[in-house]
């Protein structure tokens, strides 16, 4: 019994082992030149809706080229593990979607096809992409191994009815106005709060820490050396955490929201008057029952006297596995997916932004809301650090912010000293590589 117990323990504790133990082999999916395997990320509310949205597009691709695309939609929590397994085993799809912040990390693995001038030529040239989106396709100065597919940008969502009731004329432009408006809108007795936060989500935490840090002039990395504890970064993080601690404009219970759906739902139900979120929140808000006419969108509020940044270059990229047996077909597919027509079809379905400059002019995107986000992505977007260890940056800094929000929710003091110590611990973990 004991030895079996030990073996069981050992096997479960060494989760990672199997990942590497099954290495070797060189087969890519889609061995024939008439098929391609495509791992798509989950953009619609459910993977089934993704399949439904992509089906007509893939059918059209088959009519044009004769190539059948085997589609597999993979949820975000599994996507990196799936890709990592494909990279280590050499057995995987031909084409894959990645979060664009992972670009440099996957570029460094050497498992993906570089878009050098020859490959770029086959997909219609890199010039067709919106310039800011090209900042998030890999480490600067190295040949990128991914190209933009869907664009995203942060913005401010606000409830028109609640604004009218509080006699606020229009959306706030500066951070000071944003906090002042949020205070006017907050009424805990009526269960209405100025702003909804996804406090338990480390990704939301790191995004706001980055945007507000940038606004205050922080530089998180000198080359690849982390510098998380600058006065500017601390000030940025404090602005965000203050929403819950000193400004008291966010429901302390928001510190529990972790899965990326709770605060959009609260916003849709009128429990939070404002929401700082990426543009695709529109699909979640609609699903929770709020009509697009009931809310407005505006740029992410700007810190006075700071650097003009309102979002990071967010979005989804597309990569081709180097060992694909159908490279020509894969590149045809990448070209097809990033051409103006497909871009217009898919981005309108997913609530994302076109990455093709020509597609951005399509009448499909001619609404004030989408134009606002398109403009933010084009003019106020900075890329997250394009370094191979970007994932560790997100978890360490994001978890530090998550912890600070949790402390604030429980009424513990969160000042410069606490923020500095949380960011120092994050930096030590970053330096140790995890």
């Amino acid at each position, binding site marked *: 019994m004991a030895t079996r117990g030990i073996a069981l323990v050992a096997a479960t504790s060494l989760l990672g082992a199997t990942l590497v133990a099954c290495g070797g082999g060189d087969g890519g999916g889609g061995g024939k030149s008439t098929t391609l395997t495509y791992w798509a990320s989950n953009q619609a509310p459910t993977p089934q809706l993704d399949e439904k949205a992509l089906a007509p597009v893939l059918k059209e691709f088959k009519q044009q080229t004769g190539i059948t695309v085997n589609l597999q939609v993979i949820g975000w929590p599994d996507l990196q593990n799936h890709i990592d397994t494909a990279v*280590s085993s050499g057995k995987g799809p031909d084409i894959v979607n990645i979060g664009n912040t992972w670009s440099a990390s996957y570029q460094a693995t050497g498992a993906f096809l570089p878009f050098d001038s020859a490959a770029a030529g086959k997909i219609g040239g890199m010039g067709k992409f919106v310039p800011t989106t090209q900042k998030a396709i890999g480490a600067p100065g190295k040949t990128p191994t991914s190209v933009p597919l869907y664009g995203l940008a942060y913005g401010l969502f606000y409830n028109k009815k609640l604004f009218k009731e509080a006699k606020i004329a229009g959306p706030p432009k500066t951070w000071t106005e944003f906090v002042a408006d949020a205070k006017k809108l907050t009424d805990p007795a009526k269960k209405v709060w100025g702003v909804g936060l996804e406090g338990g989500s480390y990704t939301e935490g790191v995004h706001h820490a980055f945007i507000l840090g940038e606004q205050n002039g922080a530089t998180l990395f000198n080359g690849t050396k982390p510098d998380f504890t600058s006065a500017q970064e601390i000030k940025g993080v404090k602005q965000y955490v203050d929403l819950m601690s000193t400004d008291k404009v966010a429901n302390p219970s928001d510190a529990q929201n972790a899965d990326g759906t709770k605060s959009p739902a609260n916003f849709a139900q009128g429990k939070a008057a404002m929401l700082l979120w990426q543009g695709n929140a529109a699909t979640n808000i609609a699903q929770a029952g709020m009509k697009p006419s009931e809310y407005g969108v505006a740029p992410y509020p700007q810190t006075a006297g700071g650097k003009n940044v309102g979002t990071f270059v967010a979005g989804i990229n597309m990569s081709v596995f180097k060992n694909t047996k159908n490279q020509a077909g894969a590149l045809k597919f990448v070209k097809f997916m990033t051409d103006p027509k497909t871009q217009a079809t898919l981005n309108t379905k997913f609530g994302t932004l076109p990455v093709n400059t020509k597609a951005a002019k399509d009448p499909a995107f001619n609404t004030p809301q989408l134009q606002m986000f398109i403009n933010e992505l084009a003019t106020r977007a900075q890329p997250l650090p394009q370094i191979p260890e970007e994932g560790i940056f997100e978890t360490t800094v994001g978890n530090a912010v998550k912890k600070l929000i949790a402390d604030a929710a429980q009424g513990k003091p969160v000042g410069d000293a606490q923020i500095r110590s949380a960011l120092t611990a994050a930096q030590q973990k970053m330096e140790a590589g995890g």
Partner: protein
Amino acid sequence: MAAVTRESPGTADTAPPVPRRAPLMTRLRRIGLPYLLCVPAIVLELLVHVVPMLAGVVMSFYHLTRLYLRNWQNAPFAGLSNYKVSLQLDNAVGQSLLASFARSIAFTVLSVGFAWLLGFGASVVLQGKVRGRGFWRTLFLFPYALPLYASVFTWTFMFQRDNGLINQLLVHDLHLFTPDKAPFWLLGGNSFYALVITEIWQKWPFAFLMLMAGMQNIPGDLFEAASIDGAGVGMQIRKIVMPMLRPVNVVVILVLFLWTFNDFNTPYLLFGFGSVPDQADLLSIHIYSSTFQNQNFGLGSAQSVLLLLFLLVVTAVYLMVTRRRRDAV
């Protein structure tokens, strides 16, 4: 063998087999067959448990990150540096690993302790002539029969701050807290207790099941004799039940300890897919984050090996101590 066949091709196959094969089969049948029948199990055990374990040990000596996933043979040799980082206590990595180790021990002691107590208590009570015994037994085994996901999600809903069942009771029915001071259960210090409660709820039916089975093997006339001699319930438990249950207890506690110490699913699910607060960051979750969220497979393996060593030591010491006591008895 090869040399023999080359010198006399044909003869090696045709001449000797008949007389040689018969005794071999008999011998096999006599002593080897049980072992032969074990071979598939042993091979599978090696493949499923031992090989990945060894691979993990090897990985722990390499700087294996995502960068080297494709050519993992080329990952730079790290020597003991993954272990050094994990055990360096003046650094956030070492400190948080040690803290989560201590947390896992506290979590395990509390969970196993209460699970055993509850299981023992319930089986003692249901050992006597209680009305509706079958009903209670079935009811108590319920948590054990439920799928883990369903039961943990139910607890997650119950622990919500604004609309969870626990706070509904404490805040709105009993008025122990004002609504704006409603306690958090899924973050901060309380999250640890929320996790312990969920764990006990899940694990105690196992203790109950095993101990109940053990108790049914104790002959009833022992109790009769004891009560004739004037022994009360307490005395009967101490002098009859505990010694007779010893072998069952040894196994139950060890198995519960190993399961609980390594439990990954409960904390991972309870706090919403890995968004585990620091106060509930158990070793299993900690290693998962190092390995998969930070894609540092070498460091994660080193931490797993440390965990494995600790559990081996605990198990060995536990078995030695319990065996010696049994010999002494």
